[in-house]
């Protein structure tokens, strides 16, 4: 396979970026807009489609680009070639607080299903595709929508998600109930389904919604502790413009205001 082996290093704690080392002639692909810096000798090339080698001809390229359009990704992928004589580095930064996780596709059977938007960068040769969630109920209530991303190949891929990323290996038949929206990625051997929360009282007041996502092994799964949408909700709730209790002024009353008496989230 035409996979490039890349060395990498991840920097930062909660707002991470990954620095990828490319040997001469090697290349990496990055999601458009995530490149942070690159050294001399690295050539940036924007290609139509997803950079995988399998698709030949204009029509194949158009199909690849169409898939990316549906997943909500930009139509162009950027390829970073090392045209220099020595090792060169290029860095990709995560777009919001969270963790970057390297996944070696060769160790998990060559395919990873992940949340759309979670792809950050990969070795050249990894193909980016879409995987439609074909269970209607899961698509509607599973928190990930109908369209997920599929990474194929046997190189290294970097995925990113909010908060802390947990990697877990589910044994055959082992089931984990997950809050909807927290599923980041899983192997295709994992069964992704939904389960009704069970009690009306829990569904209404438990704060977890009507359904849980269930993941059944065997296979590896990755979960995020803080989906971006949840963080965005909290930020909007707390913002002054949205009528929240924003109080950076630090007034005397600020600390003992009605908001804090009522235990408002901030």
């Amino acid at each position: 396979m035409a996979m490039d082996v890349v060395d990498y290093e991840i920097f930062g704690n909660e707002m991470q970026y990954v620095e990828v080392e490319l040997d001469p002639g090697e290349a990496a692909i990055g999601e458009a807009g995530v490149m942070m810096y690159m050294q001399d000798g690295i050539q940036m090339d924007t290609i139509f489609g997803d950079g995988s080698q399998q698709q030949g001809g204009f029509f194949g390229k158009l199909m690849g680009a169409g898939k990316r359009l549906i997943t909500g990704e930009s139509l162009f992928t950027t390829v970073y070639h090392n045209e220099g004589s020595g090792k060169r580095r290029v860095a990709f930064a995560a777009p919001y607080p969270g963790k970057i996780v390297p996944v070696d596709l060769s160790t998990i059977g060559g395919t990873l299903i992940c949340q759309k938007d979670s792809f950050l960068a990969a070795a050249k040769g990894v193909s980016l595709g879409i995987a439609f969630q074909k269970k209607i109920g899961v698509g509607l209530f599973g928190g990930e929508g109908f369209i997920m991303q599929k990474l194929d190949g046997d190189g290294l891929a970097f995925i990113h998600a909010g908060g802390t990323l947990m990697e877990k290996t589910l044994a055959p038949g082992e089931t984990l109930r997950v809050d909807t929206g927290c599923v980041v990625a899983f192997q295709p051997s994992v069964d992704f389904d939904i389960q009704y929360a069970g009690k009306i009282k829990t569904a209404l007041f438990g704060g977890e919604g009507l359904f849980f996502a269930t993941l059944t092994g065997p296979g590896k799964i990755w979960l995020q502790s803080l989906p971006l949408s949840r963080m965005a909700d909290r930020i909007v709730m707390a913002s002054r413009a949205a009528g929240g209790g924003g109080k950076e002024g630090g007034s005397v009353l600020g600390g003992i205001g009605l908001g804090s008496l009522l235990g408002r989230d901030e």
Partner: protein
Amino acid sequence: MSDAPIPARFYPAGGAAHGHPARLAWQDGTLLVLPEDSPPQRVDIAALQVEARGFNHSQWALQWNDADGNQLLMVDDAHIAPLRDAAPALFAGGHQIRQRTHRRFGAGILFLIALPLLLLAGFFLSIDPLAERVVAHIPSGIERQIGAAVLARTRAEGRMIDSGPAWEAVQIVGKRLARPAESLEFHLVDKPDINAFAAPGGIVVVYAGLIDKSASAEELAGVLAHEIAHVELRHSLKQLVKSAGLRVIVAALLGDYGGLGGWAAQLGELKFSRDAEREADLRGLARLHEAHIDPSGMPRFFETLAKSEAGRMPALFSTHPATTERLDALQKAIAAGNRGPVEPIDVNWSAVRKGLSTSASETAPGRR
């Protein structure tokens, strides 16, 4: 059958959760399992249980029980073909489940796409009674205000004729047609178009071109009776409510595609007015009988109109039903209707038409 080994993942009983890579081959009715880091095993076909699992049922789980317990193999659908060809019966159940999932997905997507369109269609079908209900709740004060606004716009667009024989003729004919309790206003616009319209609040506007084309006061009376019927039936108000409602619904269902909303509203107007025109024709005819005016003026004017609009748009696209079509319907209604005594309208029509051309040229510079 054992040409290319099939890649799989082997989860031995009591083994690690992550499983081990393995290769599979089919040999003489047994499945040969070749794990990378443990001795090979042979599994009898009779002991195998097969089901579709994983994301979108894209994986096949091959299970069997032996002395160690439950053993599991996971194989991707992309590689399963040789095994399925060897033992199709084993895979039939799982295949059915896969098919069902795919079918349901297809049907679900279709439904999600069709839902807004269905709602829209339902709204289209029920818009007539809906608009009628809304219109019934609009007080006459608001109706009058809308009419005043329409009149103000007409005034701004073209010069009004507020005196002279033509204006008087319109008032006389209008008064004869109006019932005692009705408050109707008749206005004359100095424009060559052969047109007349009714606005909410009892306002009827006639264009000078129409008077010029009419051969007698009875013809004008026919047109006015038709427009008064529109007022009586509150047609323009219903049309307003409908097109506004359609725009809102289309915007709500399909997002802010302004053009689409306008298009749907126009389509609604089109259908609406074709029905409404026929209704107004018949009501107008009844009014002519009531006022003892010779009803033959109405179809006669349509004949003139039909001659002047020969070669125009087909009936389907025009807001008014094709005049010939209306003509037939009208003549049938006249033939069927009761013929009461007819009194001529007390207007010197040739003087009106002459006065119109002179008054238009005379008043042109001074007015408005």
